[in-house]
């Protein structure tokens, strides 16, 4: 076998290896691109919310007057209140005293913290008990039968 023949045989072997290598690499490349894509296309278990606004799953007419309910604003709890006049209001549900989750008390029409008996009126103002400052108030808008809550400013 001449040197030339040996080099052709080696070239053939290398070519085969390179073709195989490129083929599998291209396959792996496709998988590595399509897998994350598919993961992003299939929605995650929980919906991600944007920091400044949240659209609630509850319809405005399903909220009873003189009632309140906790909803998720990002990772923080917030409270949606419908007062006796039917006006919707939303506040941060984190008590300004030590950070407990507040709740709505229909018997006194106030927002109340069970931890240390703090009371807030329906403008979020701390009116009784240890909370030192008002609850942060959010803007509530009803758009096409959906409740949209925004942080102010």
């Amino acid at each position, binding site marked *: 076998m001449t040197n030339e023949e040996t080099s052709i045989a080696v070239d053939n072997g290398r070519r085969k290896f390179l073709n195989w*290598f490129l083929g599998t690499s291209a396959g792996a490349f496709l998988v590595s*691109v399509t897998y994350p894509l598919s993961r992003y296309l299939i929605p995650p278990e929980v919906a991600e919310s944007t920091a400044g606004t949240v659209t609630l799953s509850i319809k405005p007419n399903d909220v009873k007057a003189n009632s309140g309910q906790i909803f998720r604003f990002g990772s923080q709890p917030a409270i949606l209140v419908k007062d006796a006049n039917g006006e919707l209001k939303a506040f941060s549900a984190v008590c300004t005293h030590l950070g407990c989750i507040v709740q709505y008390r229909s018997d006194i029409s106030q927002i109340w913290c069970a931890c240390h008996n703090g009371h807030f009126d329906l403008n979020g103002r701390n009116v009784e008990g240890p909370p*030192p400052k008002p609850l942060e108030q959010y803007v509530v808008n009803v758009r096409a039968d959906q409740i949209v809550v925004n942080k102010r400013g």
Partner: protein
Amino acid sequence: MPRLIFGLLLILGFWTYPRGADGQPQSETCAACHLAMGVEKLTKPAELYKADIHAAKGFGCVACHGGDGTIGGMEAMDRKKGYIGKPTPAQVVEVCGRCHSDANFMRQYNPSLRVDQVAEYYTSVHGRRLREQKDEKVATCASCHKPHSIRPANDARSTVYPTRVADTCGACHANKEYMAPYKIPTDQLEKYKKSVHWQMMTTKGDLSAPTCNDCHGNHGAAPPGVSSVVNVCGQCHVVNAELFNKSVHSKIFVQMGIPGCATCHSNHEIRETSDAMLSMGDKGVCATCHTPTSTGATLAVSMLASIDRLKSGYEKAYMLLNNAEHSGMEVSQPLFELNEAKTALIKARAAIHGFDKSILDKEVEPGLKVVEKSQARGVKALEELQFRRKGLAVSAVIIFALVVGLIFKIRQMERKPK
């Protein structure tokens, strides 16, 4: 000689008095003369009074000092015309009460203002000593409401504005020399200024934080009785007070003659609480009465262990979820749910005032369940993060290998035409 000069100045002043002055009815001439005197003792009250709430409402000097302000000169200060000069402490209360105890009169100016200040004052230690022992060193209206510059209590310049009450009371109560005859401590102001209440009021601007009058009363100022301490603290700390009143300690403290709240938390120097107060170590308060092997000590240690378990569990879950969130993982739902564990922890800290493990466990158990779930979700999120990172590394290797392969392929194709 100074008396003679003072007298001459007075005569000169009244002889040359101008008519009318700010801060008093036009019919009164008192301020006009006093301001023209040039003697601080006489000008200062008239100058200060211009900014007094009473001046703003149209009251003149005569309203408190008597006499006839319509007459110029010394005749205005005729004792026969009711002139009293500087009122004695007993007269101060009588003079203020003349208007402030008259509901019909006060209604014209401030219908919601209380009119029982004088009645309350005579129930105070100050008022009782003044009336019963003729002690004129005690505080009267004018001691706290600075005469001639009285402002409403909600005016930040007022001596009775929340942030200034402590110093107003302290003017006498922190004065060792002045208080010496009464043989009571004079360190209340110093201690109060180390308290969490003062800290809240001054550093956080929380005017609802208590100062002297919130626990002692203002016009009826007196130390709360031993049995009343819980009620007084319970005005704000409602949940803790309710639990304490139902607890085993409530009755025992009464029998022992020691106050609720203050026995563990002190009175004037109330510091920020900590879980370590339940320990049997240096910072523990239970050890004051309970020996380390007693049932009380065992309960305290067991309650501390429960709270510590929830606290450390909460902190671990928060750390896991926070790490995951900072690494770009979507964990807002478990972070939101973890707020319930925080609420449970705060409730648990209040629940210890029931001194009953079952009351505490009612708050701790639900918190622990949330913590457990949150920790698991935090771990899962971080595992998912690791999986994605490994995936990225594998992809990067593959892409790199593909690039290298392509380079070889291109070189080979370039060699072919030869």
